[in-house]
């Protein structure tokens, strides 16, 4: 194995678990996430010499993942590629600790337009700043702000009132 391939393998082993989680949040489907990650890492491998010298490998992969996931035709192919009679693997099971609030939030995230969803994932999961998110997505900071604002508005509109954080907070205060 060459030094180049050894470097890449080390990166693969260290980062793929985290990147798969990001891919899952972007796609909402584990099969698609694995496929998305494999394609993104393959593209990274092709550009490895150029990217590793710049020391921003994670940012590069995130950008590939988002672009791949936003790719319109690819989404069409994926629908066919994963047609199967098998029962899909179960989604993560959630207990009733939050009375369904988490599921409601996840539903909102899954129905966001792809780009808005990418903004949400990068801001609130990857914990990127607005500027870093804008750079990754190739959009302006203003667009990041507006997409974030719309996503939060959707969250407030579509989360059942009795489950919303503000409602639960006021209930707790009343109980006291």
């Amino acid at each position, binding site marked *: 194995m060459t030094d180049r391939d050894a470097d890449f393998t080390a990166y693969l082993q260290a980062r793929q678990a985290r990147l798969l989680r*990001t891919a899952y949040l972007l796609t909402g489907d584990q099969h698609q996430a694995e496929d998305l990650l494999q394609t993104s*890492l*393959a593209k990274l491998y092709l550009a490895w010499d150029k990217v590793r010298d710049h020391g921003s490998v994670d940012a590069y992969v995130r950008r590939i993942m988002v*672009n791949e996931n*936003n790719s*319109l035709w690819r989404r069409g192919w994926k629908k066919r590629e994963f047609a199967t009679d098998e029962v899909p693997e179960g989604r993560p099971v959630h207990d009733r600790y939050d009375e369904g609030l988490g599921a409601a939030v996840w539903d909102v995230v899954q129905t966001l337009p792809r780009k808005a969803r990418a903004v949400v994932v990068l801001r609130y999961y990857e914990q990127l700043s607005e500027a870093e998110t804008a750079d990754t997505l190739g959009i302006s900071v203003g667009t990041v702000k507006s997409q974030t604002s719309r996503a939060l508005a959707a969250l407030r509109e579509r989360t059942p009132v009795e489950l919303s954080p503000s409602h639960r907070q006021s209930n707790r205060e009343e109980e006291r």
Partner: protein
Amino acid sequence: MNDETLLTTELSRRADAIAGAPLTFESVRGRAHGIRRRRRTRAAAVVAAAVALAVIVPTVLSGGSGGSDGIEPAPAPPTAPGSSVLHDGALTLPDGDTVQVDVDNADVSQMGVLTDGRIVVAMLQPRAVRVYGPDGSLDEQYPVEADVITMSAGGDAVAWVAKDLTVQVLASGAAEPATLPAIPMPGQASGGIDAVVDAQHLLVGDHTTTTGILTPDGVEDLATSKPFRVIDVSPSGDLWAVAFMPTVEHEQYGCSGLYDPEAGEVVAQRCDTPGLQFSPDGRHLLSLAGDNNMYGEALMFDRDLTQVGRFSPEGETVVVSRAGWSDPTHLVVGVTDWQTSRWSLVRVGLDGSDPEVVGPEAPGRNPETIAEYIVSA
């Protein structure tokens, strides 16, 4: 817990539950080799198409038979690249790759993609032609007389009329556009570029009739069997889609037809087929009829102008905004509801059936004034 904390918590909880089979170096490298092979095949196909055009088209233009007494194998018909789609600051290429382009569709009148990957955009505001690199970075901006570009069928050249009325032709692989003479017109009027056969041969006219062939040496008159305006050229150059002058009977759209430039005759004609566009393999044509920046349906025809397909979006207020060929047997269609301004992108087969939503429905702006999905020329 506020909304932002709630999002962070829930995303982390969902993500933490994911534990996939780890990818091996070999599996990643294998897919990388596949991607590299596809890129090479694509590049080779583009070069082959460009070479075929370069060989075939001058022969057609000169009226020669191009043949000899010996038997030569028939060349494979050149296939042009499929359409790309610009939406929400992202350009999706025919292979599914996406490039971020910092432009608002409201400011764009037309867009094309050269075979070297550069993106050419005719801007309404500012009135200019912008050339973006394959990575979406802005390379150059050129002032123009009209916010119109004309792409060659193979995507190897694009032309526009500059502010000084000269014609600019940017060829794939060339750093700067070449300057061709202005299109002769009376007074201060500017002519129109109807088709780019290749970087050295343009069909030009007065916006209603194609009257000449523009080359670096100037304009030669174009003699045709009847007056028309060329609106598209097949990838091999063997047929031109043309629009005839509107008549009293066909006032709104006029009639259209297919013209064989070598034989010098119209080989097919209909009066309900405006805006004919050849498919990438030249075997079929798309027609869009409508007004107010929208179309009621997309119609598909063969080379006899016999209808082979029809796509009409479902819903009384749902119409076609833009459409183009994504490959030789599929269209990509921007669909919008003009009452609610909701938009989606669908991929449709040649017969118009089985539309597949590839860009989910989402709110957008007024389709009478902008196209949220712009399909490359």
